[in-house]
C-alpha cells in the first residue's frame, strides 16, 4: 500500500470516528453509529499494517488475536453495574501503551541519529526513517511531545488503576488526604519538568523513565485524594487524558490520524468533566484537588423536625392511590443491585395505567450516564427516563416520588440555604411532590456530609433498609 493510499484510509477512518461519536445524539442512531467506529478502527489498523516499512506481521496478528480475545472475554462477562470500573481499567491500558510508545520513540530516535552519524540512513525504515530527516528544531519539538506523551500517559495509567480499585471497592473510596498534598503534587510536577528540561538538553533515556515513575506517583496520589462521589469527574478526566496522550504520541510520530482521534477523545472527556462539575456546582480544580469548596461563610440553617419512618404496606397503598409516580435513582440503587426490581415495579404500575417516570440527575452514580445504562439493562424503556431539566417542573403535579439511594442530588438546602456547602448545586425538586418516600439504609448523610432537610419535611417518609429488599417486598404486596 502506498503512502497516499494509507493517508486516504486514515482520512476515512477519522471521518468514521467523528460520525461514531456524533451518532450518540440519540439512542436509535447510536446502534448504527457504533459500526462506524468499528469500521474506522479496522480500516486504520489494516492500512497501517499494510503500509510500507511495517513488518513482523506474525507478531502483530498474534498480539491482536490474544488482545482481542481478552477484550472480548472481559466485555462479555462484565456486569452493567461494573461499568465504571471497567471503563477506568481500560483507560489505564491506553495510558501504559502511550508510555511504551513514547519510550520506543526515544529508542528509535537514538537509532536514527546513530544511523545519520554513520551515514547509513538508507537502511532505516518506518518511523526511524522519518526521524532521520528531521532538523534539530524539529527534534527539539519531538522531544517535548515525547515528554508530554509519557507524562500524561503515566498519570493516566496509574490514575486509572487507582480509580478502578476505588470503583471496584478494592481500595477504600474515602479521600486520602496527606498533609501538604498540594505541595507534594506541585513538587512532583516541578521535578518532572526539570527532568524534561534536562532531556531537552541531551540527557538520556533515564530522565524519561524517571518522569514516567514520578508521573505515575502523581497519578496515584491525585486519584487517592478524591472521594467516591466525585468519581464521575475523575473517570471523565482520565478519559480526556487518554485522548491527549494519544494526540501527543500522534505529534511525536507525525501521524495525523492519532492527532485527530486523540483530540476528539480529549475534547469528549473534557466536556463530560465540565458537565459533571456543573452538575455539582463545583469548579474542576476543587474536585481534582479534593475536598468541598471550603466554607461558604456563616452557619448552615438548623434543620428542625423529625424523620418519620414508613413501612412497605403504606408505600404500597400510596402507590395504589397515586396516578403519577417518579423514581429518583442514585448510586445506592447500583450498590443494592435493585435495577431489576424497580423495572418490574415500573412495569406493573404502568400496566395499571399509572404514569411512571425516572428522574436522572447528571451526577447520579459513579459515571456520567451511569443510571441510564443501569436502567436500560433492566429493560426500562428509555423514553420515560428523563433528565433533570426535562422533569423538574413536573414534580408539583406528581403524586408520589420514591428516592432510591440518592441524597445530595435531592437536597433542598442547595436552593434554600446560601451557607450550605452545596448551595447553588442544581437539584431535583422532589419535595414539591405530594408524597416523597426515601429508601435509605440508615440515617446517615450524603457524600457531601450535608444534612438533608428533605428527610424532615412533612410530606417525606423514610423507608429504611436495603433498596432491593424494600422493592421486592413492595412487589410482593402490590396486587
Amino acid at each position, binding site marked *: 500500500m502506498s503512502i497516499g493510499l494509507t493517508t486516504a484510509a486514515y482520512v476515512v477512518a477519522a471521518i468514521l470516528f467523528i460520525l461514531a461519536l456524533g451518532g450518540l445524539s440519540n439512542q436509535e442512531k447510536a446502534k448504527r453509529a457504533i459500526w462506524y467506529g468499528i469500521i474506522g478502527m479496522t480500516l486504520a489498523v489494516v492500512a497501517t499494517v499494510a503500509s510500507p*516499512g*511495517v513488518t513482523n506481521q506474525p507478531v502483530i496478528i498474534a*498480539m491482536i488475536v490474544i488482545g482481542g480475545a481478552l477484550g472480548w472475554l472481559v466485555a462479555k462477562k462484565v456486569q452493567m453495574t461494573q461499568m465504571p470500573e471497567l471503563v477506568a481499567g481500560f483507560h489505564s491500558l491506553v495510558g501504559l501503551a502511550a508510555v*511504551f*510508545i513514547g519510550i520506543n520513540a526515544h529508542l528509535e530516535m537514538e537509532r536514527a541519529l546513530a544511523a545519520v552519524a554513520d551515514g547509513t540512513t538508507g537502511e532505516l525504515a518506518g518511523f526511524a526513517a522519518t526521524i532521520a530527516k528531521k532538523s534539530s528544531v524539529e527534534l527539539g519539538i519531538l522531544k517535548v511531545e515525547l515528554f508530554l506523551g509519557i507524562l500524561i500517559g503515566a498519570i493516566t495509567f496509574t490514575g486509572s488503576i487507582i480509580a478502578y480499585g476505588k470503583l471496584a471497592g478494592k481500595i477504600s473510596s474515602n479521600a486520602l488526604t496527606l498533609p501538604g498534598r498540594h505541595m507534594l503534587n506541585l513538587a512532583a510536577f516541578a521535578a518532572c519538568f526539570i527532568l524534561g528540561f534536562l532531556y531537552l538538553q541531551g540527557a538520556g533515556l533515564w530522565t524519561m523513565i524517571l518522569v514516567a515513575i514520578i508521573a505515575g506517583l502523581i497519578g496515584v496520589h491525585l486519584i487517592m485524594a478524591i472521594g467516591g462521589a466525585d468519581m464521575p469527574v475523575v473517570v471523565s478526566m482520565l478519559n480526556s487524558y487518554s485522548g491527549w496522550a494519544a494526540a501527543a504520541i500522534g505529534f511525536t510520530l507525525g501521524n495525523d490520524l492519532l492527532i485527530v482521534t486523540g483530540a476528539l477523545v480529549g475534547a469528549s472527556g473534557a466536556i463530560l468533566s465540565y458537565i459533571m462539575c456543573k452538575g455539582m456546582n463545583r469548579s474542576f480544580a476543587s474536585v481534582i484537588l479534593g475536598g468541598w469548596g471550603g466554607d461558604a461563610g456563616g452557619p448552615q440553617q438548623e434543620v428542625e423536625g423529625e424523620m418519620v419512618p414508613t413501612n412497605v404496606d403504606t408505600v404500597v397503598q400510596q402507590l395504589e392511590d397515586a396516578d403519577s409516580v417518579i423514581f429518583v435513582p442514585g448510586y445506592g440503587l447500583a450498590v443494592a443491585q435493585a435495577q431489576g426490581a424497580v423495572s418490574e415495579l415500573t412495569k406493573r404500575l404502568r400496566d395499571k395505567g399509572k404514569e411512571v417516570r425516572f428522574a436522572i440527575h*447528571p451526577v447520579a452514580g459513579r459515571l456520567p450516564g451511569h443510571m441510564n*445504562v443501569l436502567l436500560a439493562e433492566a429493560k426500562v424503556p*428509555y423514553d420515560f427516563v428523563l433528565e433533570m431539566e426535562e422533569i423538574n417542573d413536573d414534580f408539583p403535579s406528581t403524586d408520589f416520588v420514591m428516592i432510591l439511594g440518592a441524597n445530595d442530588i435531592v437536597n433542598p438546602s442547595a436552593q434554600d440555604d446560601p451557607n450550605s456547602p452545596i448551595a447553588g448545586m442544581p437539584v431535583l425538586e422532589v419535595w414539591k411532590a405530594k408524597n416523597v418516600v426515601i429508601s435509605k439504609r440508615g440515617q446517615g448523610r450524603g457524600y457531601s456530609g450535608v444534612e438533608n432537610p428533605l428527610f424532615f419535611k412533612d410530606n417525606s417518609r423514610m423507608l429504611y433498609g436495603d433498596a432491593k429488599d424494600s422493592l421486592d417486598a413492595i412487589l410482593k404486596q402490590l396486587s
Partner: protein
Amino acid sequence: MGMKVGVPKETAAGERRVALTPETAGRIQKLGYDLQIESGAGDAANFSDDVYREAGVEVLPDAAAIWSGSDIVMKVQQPSMAEAAMVKEGSSLISFIWPAQNEDLVATLKDRKPHAVLAMDQVPRISRAQKLDALSSMANIAGYRAVVEAANNFGRFFTGQVTAAGKVPPAKVLVIGAGVAGLAAIGAARSMGAIVRSFDIRPEVAEQIESMGAEFLFLDFEDSDGGGTEGGYAKPSSPEFRAKQLELFEAQAPDIDIVITTALIPGRPAPELWTEKMVRAMKPGSVVVDLAAEQGGNCALTVKGERIVTDNDVVVVGYTDMASRMAAQSSQLYGTNLRHLLDDLTPEKDGQPNVNMEDVVIRGCTVVKDGEITFPPPPVSTSVAPKAVAPKKVEETAEEKAAREAAELKKAGSRTTMLLVVGAALLLALGTVAPASFMQHFIVFVLSCFVGFYVIWNVAHSLHTPLMAITNAVSSIIIVGALLQISSPNTTVMVLAALSVLMASINIFGGFLVTRRMLAMFQKS
C-alpha cells in the same frame, strides 16, 4: 384475635351518612379488625345490609348489640347523650365530638371510663394528617353541594349562551371564604360556566382562588393581613378591616346572582358578613347559600336548617346537612378518613389499636384517654419547616431578567473575544518558533478539538456511559503508533511495541463490544 369495630346507625335526625362503606371495610379488615354494623345503617346512603355481608361485615340487629359488643365504635355525628350512656367501659369511640362546644358530652363520655375517645374534628391541620382530615373532606362535599342547591333554587342558567331565542348572560357567583368548601364551590360553579368572584381575609389564598378560575376581590387595606391564620384557619379581624370588607360586599350585592358564604372561625359563632341590607340590594330570584348556618350563619337572614324566601324574592338556603345530602359520597370519604386513622392507630396491623400520645396527630384527636379529659391538646404549629430566616428570593421582573440575560450574553461574548485574541496571539507566537511540519499537525489538532467540541455537545445525556466506552475504544487508535514501531530491529522497541499492540487490542475489542452491549439494551417502550 383482632378487636371488634362496630358501626351503629346514625340517630341524628336527617343524617344519612354511615361511618363504614363496603370498600373501606375491606381495608380495615386488612388491619386485623373484625367488623360489625347495625342493620340498616347504610340504607340512607344506598349501602344495603347484603352488600356489607358480602364484604365480610357481620350485621347485628340493633344499636345496643353494637355498643355492647364492640371494642371500637365508629360514628359520623357526635353521639347523643343516650348513645354516650351506652359507651362500654374500656372501649374506644371515634366520631365527630366538637369538644369545645360540647363540654357536657365530653364529661359524660369520660364518666363511662372508655379507653379513648377520638374526635375526627380535632385532627391537626398538618400535611401528614390530611388523609384523615374529615373536616376537609366533608367541607369539599358541602362546597360542591352548595352550588348544586344554589343552581336548584336559581331560575336561570349558570353558563352564558347565545341561542336563537336570545342571549343568556352567565350567572355571577360570589364565594366568601376560600377554605376547602369555598374552593370546592368555586370549582363547581366555574365548571357550570358561571363567573365566579371570591373573597377571603387571608390574602395568601388569592393564588389558590385564581388557580380555581375565580377572580380574587382585593381589599385595599393598609394592614391587609387583617385576618391572618391560626392553625390553618382564619382568625377574627379588626373592626376597621370589617368595615372595609362590608363596603366591598355592599358594592357587589346588586351585581351578584348567587352568594355562597363559608366563613367560619373555629370555636366562635360565624361572623356576619352578608347583612340584611345586602340581601335587600340583591336582584329578585337571587340565591344565598350559607354554609355557616350551623354556627349561626354568615348571612343575617339565615334560618338554620331551612330554606326561606325574603320579601324581595331572594332565596336564603341555610341547610346544615349538605354533606349528608350526598350520603354515598360523603360516607365513602369519611369512611376513608376513618380508615386512615385506624391505619395510624394500628402500625402493627394486628387489630390492636395503640393510642400513641407521642404522635402529634393522634394526640390532637384524642379528647378522652383512660378516664382523663385530654382536650385541648398542646398547640401544634402547622409549619414544622425550618424557622431560620431564609432570605426570600426576590422575584425579578421581566425587564430585569432581560437586562440580566443581555448582560450575561455580553459578558460571554466579550469573554469569547478575549479567548480568541489570546488564542490567536499564542498561535502566532508558536508559529514564529515552530517549524512548518509541526504547524501542519498543529492545525489538524486544533481543528479536531473544535470538531470534537461540537460533536460531543450533541450527545444525549443518557448516552454518556456508552460515549465513554466508545471513546475509550477509539483512543486505542494509539495502536497505530505501536504498529509503526514494531518493525524495529531493536528488540526492546519490538517487545514494547508488541505489548502496546496487545493492550490496545484488548481495549479496542473490549471497548466496542461493551458499547454495543450497552446500546442494545436501550429500548423504547
